[in-house]
């Protein structure tokens, strides 16, 4: 939480990025507490490792200082707090935290938990669901990663050919 507020306040983007790495590690430990070990591992590796490096690389391409806030902050603050209050009001209809007979535990999850070993011989149910029961879903995600990679390569390649053209700096 404190880290989040610091991220909101800080203007030096280098510090913001370092803090977002810290934030990712804290998030990973929270996810550990929620029993999501696979997700925590991914968050620690992705959030603290790869995305920090990518943000720093992008920062190297641009400027590292954010300008002081040029616009009035009241309207966004009101909007954000309003949305937050509405969402908090909405959470009171959710089932209480951690109880075993919430609707989410009654749908397909028991089937996965009871039949994963019998049907797939895989003890880690997350892997079984990821690659077997919901493999179409995962296939879509892999294609999204692929497409994003292709998009970045298209955007960032071939500077030398573009530089001579009159596309860039206008007088």
């Amino acid at each position, binding site marked *: 939480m404190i880290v989040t507020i610091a991220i909101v306040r800080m203007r030096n983007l280098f510090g913001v990025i370092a803090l977002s790495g810290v934030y990712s590690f804290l998030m990973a430990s929270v996810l550990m507490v929620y029993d999501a070990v696979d997700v925590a591992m991914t968050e620690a590796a992705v959030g603290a490792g790869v995305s920090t490096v990518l943000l720093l690389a992008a920062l190297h391409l641009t400027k590292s200082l954010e300008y002081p806030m040029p616009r009035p902050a009241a309207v966004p603050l009101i909007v954000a707090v309003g949305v937050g209050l509405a969402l908090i009001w909405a959470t009171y209809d959710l089932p209480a935290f951690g109880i075993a007979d919430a609707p989410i535990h009654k749908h397909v999850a028991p089937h996965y938990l009871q039949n994963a070993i019998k049907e797939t011989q895989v003890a*880690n149910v997350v892997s079984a669901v990821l690659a077997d029961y919901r493999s179409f879903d995962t296939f879509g995600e892999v294609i999204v990663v692929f497409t994003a990679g292709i998009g970045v390569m298209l955007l960032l390649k071939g500077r030398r050919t573009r530089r001579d053209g009159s596309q860039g700096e206008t007088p």
Partner: protein
Amino acid sequence: MRLDVVLRVGVKLIIPFMLVFGLYVQLHGDYGPGGGFQAGVIVAGAIITYALIFGIEEAQRVAPRKLVEFLVPLGVLIYAGTGVIGLLSGQNFLDYSVLAAHAPAGRERGILLVEAGVLVTVASTMIALFYAFSERGR
């Protein structure tokens, strides 16, 4: 790039373990936490660390850009090909039960193949993203 000796030696010591840990996470994903996504990110992290310390040219001798960009679609093709095997054998797309004599064993094998595809795509995409950003900077 003249950098600190401690960094260079330390990174040289760490990187083999990072790669082995990535493979462990990949292949042990059936029994413990892990899988293709995590392992891909860890392997990519190892290469990116190497590139950060030793410079991008050294890293591209280990993982040439052509190879990385070839691997990005290859992973998707491994995944899709695993699905198409099921399709050709008269089952549904991505139905792995035909890959072995018994359906559960076949599904386990299918999970391994699919995770391998995920590993290849995720790792090579992350490395390619890093190469794209860092080459833009010069």
